[in-house]
């Protein structure tokens, strides 16, 4: 992000009009960087940095319900956070997002799920495979 851009506090909320259809914005929730996007009328909130080399996804490209990293072209699913295409393999963390009264706000997800790798590790220890 360029230096003159003010990084919005997404926990505090931003005007709905700041996020038109087909756009994304990077901001913060607490001390973490979060990317929000509106695609097909639906809102998404995921970690703002690529899990490969921490490229700023907001400078990338929205393609359907995916975001592509500007640095090395990894693809992520906005819905699940999954790293769909190399060079990233780890998923993006997801955030809660809501829109009411002309304000969009993001927050930590209330139903905390284990990150996929940790869940897999537990599964393998439990003998699923």
């Amino acid at each position, binding site marked *: 992000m360029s230096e003159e851009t003010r990084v919005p506090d997404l926990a505090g909320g931003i005007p709905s009009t700041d996020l038109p259809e087909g756009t994304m914005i990077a901001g913060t929730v607490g001390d973490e960087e979060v990317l929000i996007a509106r695609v097909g009328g639906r809102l998404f909130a995921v970690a703002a940095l690529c899990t490969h080399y921490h490229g700023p996804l907001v400078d*990338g490209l929205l393609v359907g319900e995916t975001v592509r990293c*500007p640095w*090395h*072209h990894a693809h992520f699913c906005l819905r699940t956070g999954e790293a769909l*295409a*190399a060079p990233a393999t780890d998923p993006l963390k997801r955030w809660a997002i809501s829109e009411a009264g002309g304000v969009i706000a993001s927050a930590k997800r209330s139903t905390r799920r284990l990150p996929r790798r940790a869940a*897999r590790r537990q599964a393998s*220890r439990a003998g699923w*495979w």
Partner: protein
Amino acid sequence: MVVIGGGAAGFAAVEMLRRKGFDGSVTMLSADADAPYDRPNCSKDYLAGDAQPEWMPMRDASWYADHDIDLRLGTDAAALDPVAKSVTLGNGESLDYDALLIATGAEPIRPPIAGFDRPDAYVLRSLRDADAIIAAAGQAKCVAVVGASFIGLETAAALRTRGLEVHVAAPEAIPLARVMGDDIGRWVRGLHGQAGVVFHLGHGVTGWSDGRLALDDGTAIDADFLVLGMGVRPRVALAEAAGLAVDRGIMVDAQLRASAPGIYAAGDVARFPDPHNGQPIRIEHWVHAGRQGQHVARAILGDAAPFTDPPYFWSVHPGAEIRYIGHAEAFDPPHVGGSLAHHDAEVAFASGGRLLALATVGRDRRSLKIGVELTV
């Protein structure tokens, strides 16, 4: 499932298989001494001393066991029997497979030039190769790099960062011109020149001995050691001996299937049909190899889609990165849009009016957009 190769394609395949719930056995044979790591970094920040060793592994060591992946390092496959569907290791052990991925990659070329087989003539492919060069650099003042390839130039820049005097000798007049055109080539040469790299272009090399690299015009470069950046050749010996179709790479179809049942090839070793024209092509890029490995995983799980991702790579030069999307082996004289000097440019590679590839500097979103356009 047996995977031969522990590079980008092999790693991406096993990671995607387990991610998608594949519950069969997975054995991964790697000739490398190290578990899969971030290979591009071996010629970039890691070689320059700007990346920590702990950043290099793709996964920590426990990940493989946790995911029931039998990773065997320092292990070569000695023979492949496509009829019996088995792979024999050097120690005589035999592994049966339902699906086999050959992702053996490529190996650096050491041309038959006097002295190029000496221990102080290094190549750069593996993490161990990078460590050997770093160790040599620690006791050296001056290095000569043979070849103005991407690896050669990245090595030159990294060793300049370490404070060495760096010479680059290559036969071409303009580095990278064959791949990127003259404009980018001249600009890249300038970037390295400003960083203190001394070029000896337009010269063949005739020998290396006693700290002297002899050039074909009778001059010589004095150096403490040599790095060869002279390209790679695909590791096809196993496939060839097994009778698979091989033509400067293992021939695969659009689903990345080789010429025998259950066998796939991916990454640097595979020659696959260009989705735009069906012509068999072989690509030596990290991201592309990972994509192909992931595609093989999906194919094994039943997805019959052809592989259509446009090739992508990035290359790091002093103060600038080049991104390249697409594939253009031959192209019309390319046009530079914007300004390379201002690190805000794009160079389109086209043939017969059709865009084949785009190189960008400082125009990341443009590269992504062209990637979408070039996806069949």
